[in-house]
């Protein structure tokens, strides 16, 4: 995620919005009060097609195979559409029993949604109906890891025992977060550490699933992806769509992930929580049926039992709708703000330097060969 501190905040009716950064899905703004005090929440503003294309173009141009600019343009259009589609899966994370599960909602940084019609400039009377989200404000992994760039194990003043303990805890928490979301039937399929965000409380840390769009719910597909070991990508300097992990952490990170992300561990956890929730609701319906005498009610209860595997995952409660009362005019302002994304800068300045150092010329050639093999 890129970020900029230079952009002036947007001044809304009740709030000020400080641009924090953007990915390929959303622009993120920290929500501050009128007196510019952080509220502890961010608002995620969906990128439109042109913005998405703008963001995905640089990395795509480095890995895609194409002969003409027109060909590349077609590829970029297709990729932008694909990326935009991921956003449509987000509301299901808040529906039904998911939205009522305190632990799961905490893992998602208390994600809430809001929606407002945004008038279009192009067609009079027409409007977009984008979904905005608010979430707890956290530190990005990129920013957090900056401290460990170029650190050497031998120089004890650079990385202290306390730092190592915290890093071990961080890696463990990343793994545990993946485990937790597997239990709810979701699979973060890119294994990007930067999709997680960090709460820092004095000596302790906690993490949330910050960028939630890259997930699937299909078990078979998840198992195939698991075998690809995508958690190795953050140590491949050529994988420019992943944050490059500080060298000092790599060995430990990979070892821990290799041990944790196995088919056995996955199968042990996949939809475990869902199964428990379904069983609990089914028991409740069954108990109700035992007390029923009215045949029509018994039939209705029977049908409810058969629909349970769908119905408990449906429906939004008021708690999932954002309650900050962000006015519609502010949402229009945020949606139409195009300054930030164009001026965005890297917050973790050392990351590209460390990545470039790691990417020797031999590796570059080897990677290109591998890529070529994969594409053909």
């Amino acid at each position, binding site marked *: 995620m890129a970020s900029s501190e230079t952009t002036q905040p947007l001044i809304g009716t009740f709030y000020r919005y400080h641009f924090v950064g953007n990915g390929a899905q959303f622009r993120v703004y920290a929500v501050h009060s009128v007196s510019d005090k952080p509220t502890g929440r961010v608002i995620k503003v969906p990128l439109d097609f042109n913005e998405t294309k703008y963001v995905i173009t640089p990395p795509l141009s480095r890995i895609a195979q194409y002969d003409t600019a027109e060909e590349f343009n077609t590829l970029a259009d297709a990729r932008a559409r694909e990326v935009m589609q991921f956003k449509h899966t987000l509301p299901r994370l808040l529906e039904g029993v998911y939205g009522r599960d305190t632990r799961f909602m905490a893992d998602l940084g208390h994600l809430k949604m809001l929606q407002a019609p945004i008038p279009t400039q192009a067609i009079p009377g027409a409007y977009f109906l984008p979904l905005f989200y608010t979430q707890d404000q956290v530190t990005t992994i990129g920013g957090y890891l900056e401290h460990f760039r170029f650190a050497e194990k031998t120089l004890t003043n650079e990385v202290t025992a306390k730092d190592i303990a915290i890093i071990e805890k961080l890696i463990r928490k990343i793994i545990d977060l993946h485990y937790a979301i597997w239990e709810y039937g979701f699979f973060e399929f890119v294994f990007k550490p930067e999709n997680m965000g960090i709460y820092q409380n004095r000596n302790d840390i906690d993490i949330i699933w910050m960028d939630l769009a890259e997930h699937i719910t299909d078990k078979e597909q998840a198992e195939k992806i698991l075998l690809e070991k995508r958690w190795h990508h953050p140590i491949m300097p050529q994988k420019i769509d992943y944050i490059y992990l500080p060298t000092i952490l790599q060995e430990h990170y990979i070892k821990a992930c290799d041990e944790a992300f196995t088919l056995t561990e996955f199968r042990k956890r996949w939809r475990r929580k869902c199964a428990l929730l379904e069983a609990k609701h089914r028991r409740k319906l069954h108990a109700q049926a035992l007390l029923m005498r009215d045949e029509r009610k018994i*039939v209705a209860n029977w*049908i409810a039992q058969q*629909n349970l595997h769908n119905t408990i995952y449906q429906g939004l409660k008021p708690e999932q709708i954002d309650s900050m009362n962000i006015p519609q005019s502010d949402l229009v302002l945020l949606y139409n703000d195009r300054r930030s994304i164009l001026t965005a800068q890297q917050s973790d300045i050392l990351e590209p330097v460390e990545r470039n150092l790691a990417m020797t010329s031999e590796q570059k050639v080897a990677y290109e060969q591998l890529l070529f093999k994969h594409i053909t």
Partner: protein
Amino acid sequence: MQNGRVLKIPLTEAETFQIAKERRNIIHGTEEQVASLEVRVQTFMNSKARMPAMINHGFDDPQPFLRLLGDPKLVAVDNILPEDTPEKRWGAARFVYSQEKVEVIRGLLHYLKDQPSISAIERRKFKRLVEDYITQMYSLWEYGYADYIFKLGDMGIREDGSLVCIDLGEFTSDRQFVERALVEKWWLDNVNPLKNDFPKMHSSLEPEYVALLESALTPKALNEHWRKKHQCSACIPEADTITAFITTKVMEIDYIDRL
């Protein structure tokens, strides 16, 4: 929605086109396709366009009738649907309504279909469901309306066991037309493997379903129930004449789904 209701937003013409493409529109009992996609899409749009008139029909006491339909309420569209554009067009089907949120029978049919066998208890419950479905059809007829598609999976059920017709785009007030649907037994689509948009029941339940509907959904039964409770100030003799004229015209234009 959070108030125990659902909001139904009509598909645009382009979306309807996508759905229609996936369905087989065939003459009942044959495999013969009956209409072009464009004509079928227009028929779908017209069916939707008839819904507000049914919901707002001027019954002296509309509540018992509306309860059969899940208490639908029209919602002002100004803040929901944008103006029609070439890409997004609702045309005459430009309205939104809310309805009670109920359990849908489609899920039960899927479950039963997947079972290796059906227990005696489940068989009894299913029989009760079909009997209630027949009663529901009779109740609708008493108000002068009929579901002519007979898609069992599109029925809903409340916690108290009362049934709800959730798909309001498949109704007619044209008695002649309903009679034809009964004579031709269009309700057999629920067990017709060629009709892939109808959720199917377990094959062992089909004979009982067919037997029950065979004896209940007849022109004679229609005659006994038709408009028995239709008390309204809207259907004055002049209006009947106009309605008959309009019905004839609509039948000429909008005939495809009726084949």
